[in-house]
């Protein structure tokens, strides 16, 4: 079991997303190794839905996901911080208007 040979043969990693019931979005629930997409689906069913946790599964090769860099968090998300006028509570409306 040398690391070199086994690395070459390790099944690729897949990310698993599950829709828990009709009407809600698929949500990331974990990952697993599988040789191909079909097998990843079967594995995901056995690993993540043993108790009817889902009605639909997506599997995506982990390598296909492009993620934002945590180090860029500030430059990515900071600009939204001072735009408080994007929230409804920024605007003061007289009480007599009622619910708006």
């Amino acid at each position, binding site marked *: 079991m040398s690391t070199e040979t*086994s690395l070459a043969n390790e*099944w690729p990693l897949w990310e698993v997303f599950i829709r828990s019931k009709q009407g809600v979005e698929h949500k990331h629930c974990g*990952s697993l190794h*599988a040789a*191909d997409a079909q*097998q990843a689906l079967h594995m995901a069913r056995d*690993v993540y839905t043993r108790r009817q946790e889902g009605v639909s599964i997506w599997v995506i090769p982990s390598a296909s996901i492009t993620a934002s860099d*945590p180090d860029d968090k500030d430059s990515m998300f900071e600009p939204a911080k001072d735009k408080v006028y994007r929230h409804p509570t920024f605007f003061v409306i007289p009480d007599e208007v009622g619910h708006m």
Partner: protein
Amino acid sequence: MYTQSFNVPDASNVQSEHRDIQPVLTEFEQESMAKAQLHFDQIIDADGKIEPKAWMPDAYRKTLVRQISQHAHSEIVGMLPEGNWISRAPSLKRKAILIAKVQDEGGHGLYLYSAAETLGTTRDQMLDALHTGRAKYSSIFNYPTLTWADVGVIGWLVDGAAIMNQIPLCRCSYGPYARAMVRICKEESFHQRQGFESLMVMMQGTAEQKSMVQDAVNRWWWKCLAMFGPPDADSTNSTQGMRWGIKRVSNDDLRQKFVDATVPQAAVLGVTLPDPELKWNEARGHHDYGQIDWDEFWATVNGNGPCNTERLATRVKAHEDGQWVRDAAMAYARKQRLRQTQLQEAA
């Protein structure tokens, strides 16, 4: 199922830590490192979560890789003592329940391996460490399951102890580990209840069946208490683990909680716990209990328990016997991809 006695180093760690060469850092690198450390400390102090790609101290990463992978190994090896009884379960109902439980343990191992992989270790590296005997797993699985009553007692006591250990881990500072633990804890309650219920059925049976239950309780009780790990006074890594939000409750506190919870359950079941010193202490508001045999615990951790060799050999054989399946699946996937490419090129 799991024990937090995993503050024990793996066989390889001592060596590899010595091999680490500290790189020489420029002033700029030192400064940004200090900044990163400060940011990490702030998250920990605020009881926040650390996520996979965020900066973390090397020792935090190493501790987590060790703990999560040992936890995963324990789930996988933990399938063996009970798997032993699948073909000999007393009824179809018990067999179906046991298969479901053992499958859960396998699932728990997979959630945890995935969580450990987010820290930069590979599945094969972890399996290699287990199979070559470098990595530790919970020593509770190095004891034999002699009768059907052992299966019930493992559910009731071993999984019961595991639940006590695992619930605080749902609040662990490392996000992927905490999320895996939430999933595991949800499933673990079934394990304990099925064990207790199966023992209740046996306790309504013949004198022989009742004595089987008592015998199994006698053999497992002290080993379950040891699952919580060495006494706080001897638990060297605890302070750091607490500081990092990896460990939330001390070994002795969890052990006490387990004893207090189990005593009334044993009374309902109608068995005694094999400890003459076990009694309610009004002043403390807890049960007092006797001395745990730590020499036996360490002998088992260090490879000299009754089943260490057998468990590892079974695990290695299963892995090697499955090699052709893994290879075939990869070859098939490669062939399918190639065929697809050829079809696209032809079109």
